[in-house]
Structure formats: C-alpha cells, structure tokens
C-alpha cells in the first residue's frame, strides 16, 4: 500500500487523550504526529502565590496514577528551596511509598493496558473468563501495591500524610510486618509475571536513541540523584533545563523536549539501560530470563523492563521494611525549613520516567514553578519511532498498521493527563 491515511481519534487504554495522525502519499510519509489534544492544565500558574505547604497536595492532582511521584518530586523541590533535610526514617518511608506506586502503575500497564493487545482482546474484561488466573494475579498484585501506598501515606491516589520535611502519620510495626509477609508471598506472582512476558511475541522493531535516567551511587534510584545519559554525560538536577530544552509544537498541548539527539527516552527501559547493574539480583535474573541486556533499543520492550522493575521494587520494598522494622518507627515532627525564601529542583523517576519540579519561593509563598513531565519528554521520541516504523510496515493492512502504532504509543505508557492530558491514531 503506497497511500495510507491513519486517524485514530483518542487512543484507548492510555491515560488521557491523544490522537495518532499518519498521512502517506505515494509511498512518501507526509505526516506522522502524535497529537496531544488534552486541555491545558496550567498547574504552574495555579501554584503561584500559594503557601509552600500546598504545593505537593496541588501537584499530586496533575496525575491520578503518579500522584505519589508528583508529591515526592514536589516535596524535594520545596525542601531544596527551603533548606530542609528529611530524617533517615522519612527517606526510607518515601522510598517504600514510591515502590508501591511503581508497582501499582506497572501492573496496571502490563496487565490491563498492554497484555490485551498481545492476547488479542480489546480489554482485560474478557480475560476474566478466558484467563481468570492472570486477571486474579494482576488484581492481587495491584491490591498489594495500593495497600502499601495507603499504609504509608493514607491513600494511594493523592497522598495525605506526606509533607515538607516528613510525615504527619506513621504506619504501625504490625502493618509493616503484614505488608512484608504479603510482599514475600507475592514473589510467586512476580515470577508468573516474568513468565507471562517471556511468552509474549513482541514486535521486532528497533531504533537506537538517547536514554536518560536519574543515577545515584549503587542504588537503582527513583528519588534524587543526578541526571545520566546513555550518550554520555552527567548533569546536576539544577541543570535539568540543559537536558529538557522544552519547545512548544502546534499539534500538542504538551511541550516537546530534545537533548543530545533529536529526541530522548525516559522511563523503565531508559532506567534499565542506565542502571541495570544496580538491580536486585532477582530482578537481574528476571531480565536474563526475558533476554534483556543493555542496551535494549526496542521500545515495545518497555513493558518487559517494567516487569523487571516489578521484581526489583518488590525485593527492595522487603529490604526497606526490614530496615524500618529494625530501627523501629518513631513519631517524628517534620523537619523544619531553615529559611522561607529560596529556589530548588526536585526530581524523581516516576513509572513513566524522570519528573522534575522546580520552585521559587519567597517568604513562604511560591512565586515561580516549572514542572517537566516524563510523557512530555517521550513525545518527540514516540513520534520519531512512529516515523521509523511506518515505512517498514506499509505492506500491511490499514488495520494492522493502526494496531502496530497504537501498541507502540501504548508501550510508552504515556500519561496524557500529566503531560497536560493526551492520545487518539488519526489516519487523515
């Protein structure tokens, strides 16, 4: 087929609204856009003038999936600005909470959003009849992840008790012990997840790109660190603008970014490519079982990298709980600010990739804010993937091409309401 028009209006099974628009005329690719048609959200503007303690509560509402991630990056930005050093207990609790969110989001993506394509169904619902064990496993794993978040911060979607400098509520040792037992029991579900992924027939599409993730010593890091690139180079968080270089494009209410090439990738696969050697041994074994070795350049394998992270986060959560149990949980007042005016950048690796929050605070009120969101950073990369993919599959039916493109976009787990809200394929 030399002439092709694809127009997927509102891609399904992704968070938010986006369109895929492809136009091929006489074998020439004229247009290939991922349009973000979500309404602008204006969070940066809404933060201005508000007390610094509001920032994490407000910005957690950027995204219902990554609420803990936004709150964490937000708190770190505020703490950097106001000279707050959280206690070791706070740091451990935040890490543990974060694992809960990564697990929840990755399980949702792998089982409910991605797997139906590979199993030939439109949603996870028919699987409840045809593969009840798979669905029940996903639900069990999600429930554990949600309960983990709720135990630490009060609620999964939109944390309550996380605040600048610490927490306002603490889990009991009993709760932590119960969670630990459930995490240990979920190792079997982790193994089964890896087995499921090993059986999926991922498309063999490859495109090398720049991979960007946070890096911190010997840790497979999710909070703080420095910015690391597979193309070489490390940057302090404060220099995030040197990496993100945001630009505005007309077909997307989410901004685009580029660094050392025309685009770069953030997210589970980028983290895997950069921090692979710091994974828990069980997660490294899982990667091996899936045939993943850095550098992996097939974007469809993002789901496989997420499965590896599911193993890692489960194991690391057990280790974190062990540390907390050993230390004992103390009721601590949140660490206090040492000043009320300052500027700070906070960063975290949320499920979809690196997230930056940057605040300027004056006399306790936020006067300037900038948030750079992972999906925004991936958009240009997704488009370049689509442009590389389309010419190689033009011999297929329009239906197959559309599905291949949707699956590609879905592989990135784009969070369109966070990038402002995005996804829909339109063959014009």
């Amino acid at each position, binding site marked *: 087929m030399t002439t092709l028009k694809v127009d997927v209006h*509102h891609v*399904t*099974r*992704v*968070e*938010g609204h986006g369109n895929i628009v492809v136009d091929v005329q006489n074998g020439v690719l004229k247009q290939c856009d991922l349009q973000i048609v*979500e*309404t*602008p*959200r*204006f969070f*940066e*503007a*809404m933060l*201005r*003038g*508000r*007390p610094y303690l*509001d920032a994490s*509560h*407000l910005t957690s*509402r*950027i*995204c*219902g*999936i990554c*609420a803990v991630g936004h709150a964490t990056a937000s708190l770190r930005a505020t703490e950097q600005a106001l000279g707050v050093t959280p206690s070791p207990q706070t740091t451990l609790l935040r890490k543990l909470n974060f694992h809960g969110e990564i697990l929840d989001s990755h399980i949702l993506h792998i089982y*409910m959003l991605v797997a*139906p394509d590979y199993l030939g169904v*439109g*949603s*996870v*619902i028919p699987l*409840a009849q045809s593969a009840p064990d798979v669905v029940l496993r996903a*639900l069990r794993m*999600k*429930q554990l992840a*949600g309960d983990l978040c709720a135990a630490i*911060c*009060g*609620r*999964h*979607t*939109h944390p*309550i*008790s996380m*605040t600048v400098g610490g*927490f*306002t*509520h603490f889990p009991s040792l009993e709760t932590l012990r119960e969670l630990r037992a459930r995490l240990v029991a979920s190792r079997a579900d982790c193994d089964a997840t890896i087995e499921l992924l090993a059986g999926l027939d991922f498309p063999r599409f490859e495109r090398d790109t720049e991979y960007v993730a946070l890096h911190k010593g010997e840790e497979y890091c999710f909070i703080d660190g420095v910015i690391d690139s597979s193309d070489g180079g490390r940057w302090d968080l404060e220099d995030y603008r040197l990496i993100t270089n945001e630009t*505005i494009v*007309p077909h997307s*209410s989410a901004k685009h970014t580029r660094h050392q090439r025309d685009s770069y990738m953030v997210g589970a696969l980028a983290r895997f490519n950069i921090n692979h050697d710091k994974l828990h041994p069980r997660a490294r074994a899982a990667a091996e079982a899936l045939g993943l070795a850095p550098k992996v350049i097939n974007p469809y394998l993002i789901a496989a990298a997420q499965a590896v992270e599911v193993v890692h986060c489960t194991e690391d959560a057990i280790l974190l709980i062990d540390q907390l149990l050993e230390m004992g949980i103390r009721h601590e007042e949140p660490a206090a600010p040492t000043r009320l005016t300052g500027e700070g950048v906070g960063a975290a690796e949320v499920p979809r990739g690196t997230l930056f929050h940057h605040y300027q605070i004056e006399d306790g*009120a936020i006067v300037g804010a900038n948030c750079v969101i992972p999906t925004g950073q991936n958009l240009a990369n997704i488009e370049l993937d689509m442009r590389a993919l389309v010419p190689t599959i033009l011999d297929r039916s329009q239906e197959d091409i559309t599905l291949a493109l949707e699956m590609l976009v879905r592989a990135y787990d784009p969070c369109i*309401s*966070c990038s402002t*809200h995005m996804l829909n394929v339109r063959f014009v």
Partner: protein
Amino acid sequence: MKPKVAFFEFTSCEGCQLTVLDTLQRHPELLEVIEIVQFREAMSERGEDYQIAFIEGSCTRPSDEAKIREIREQAQIVVALGACAHLGGINAIRNRMPLEQTREYVYGDKKDWFETYPARPLSAVIEVDAVIPGCPIDRKEFATAVTHLLQGRKPAIPDYPLCIDCKLTENVCMFLRGQTCLGPVTRAGCEAICPAQGQGCEGCRGLIPSPNMHSIKQALREHGMTEDQIAAKLSLFLTYQTMQLEGVTPA
C-alpha cells in the same frame, strides 16, 4: 437486562476513574449487575447506547460543551464523579486570575494555540442527577451509589459537616493540635480521612448547604493564618463555590 454504563472524562487527573477501576476490582459483584459499554482508559470497545453516564473532570473549554450535552441527551442518569466534575475542583483555582496571564505564564507567546476558558463544574453546563464528591472519590461511596442507582434511587450524600464524621472517628481536632481545618464547612462522608492522617481538611467534598464562611474565616484567623493563607486554603477545591457565594464572575 443489566443497565449500560459509560464513563467519560474531561479536564481531570483520571484519579477518580482509577478509583472506580480499583473499586470494581475489589467488588467484582458490581460487574455482574451493570454492563460497562465505554471506559476509554480501560477498554478499546466503545458503545453509545448507555443509560447511566459517569462523568469525571471539569469543563474548561467551549469545545467540550457539545460533547457534555450529547452525553446528557443519551443518558437517563448523569453522575458527576469527583471534585472536578462536582465543583470545578482544583482546575477552578485559576478562575480568580486573569486568564490571559495564566496562558502566557505557561505557553508564552504561543498562548493562543490552545483553547481554554475558566473551569466550570458539570452542573454549570448541563443538569446533573447525582454527585459522588471527593478528590478522589471514596470507593465505598461509589459502590453504594451504584447500588442506589440500580434501585432507582438517587445516591444520597451527607449534607452535615465533616466534624461529625471526625468525632465519630475519634480524631483529636486539628484546631486543638494547633493546626487548621475546613471540617466545619465541608460536606461529610469521607470518614474525615485527612484529620485522621494528621492533615487538616482541604474541603475536597465541597461546602455544606449554608456554610458559615464568616466564622470559619474567623477561626482560621484566630489560629494564626494570614488573609492570603486563608484565601489559599479556601481556594484549593472551593474556588468555584466561594466565587458563587461572593457573586464574583471569573476574571
């Protein structure tokens, strides 16, 4: 025949829909009494012959209105899901700021590329039959609401203040802990989950009928809050409602 149910979202974080998914997972029996024909975030199938529509998110641009009206015409029952749909939610924070400035701050000289106007709750666009309040919604309340809708009843939400929930939960009042809380003017029904976690209520379930705004402001002042801090607190979720009470139209 099971009633056909559809989910829609406008300007939102999709946190309420995720809470719905979570509720359905924890209460699979609900899936036996309703048939979901549309849920873009969770499924690719799309049916247009629904009787009950749950709508998440606020209306923030003129082009959303037609779709919202279309849903109203199709559905017998429209339910506003969560604070964004119920109150305009956090999206309405910017209603007090000049729209041009807001657009310019985020998009600079490209500010006219993207359509927007002040954020509004669903009820400002169409008639809404029921609301499930909260940011996010409460799981139990959603499950109960579905049951009520199936019985042909309008889901009832409390119209008494959160302090009652809070007393029943046996929390120590935030004001006694030297902090502040919007509980006295906020609609109950969440079991005062925020005070229970050591945080004052932010008012995400909306104001009770006839709230005493004067005395809550006085109480906040007496507990050391500045006028700016009070204004910020009352505008996290309550901008649209407080502007209505004051008779102010969006800038």
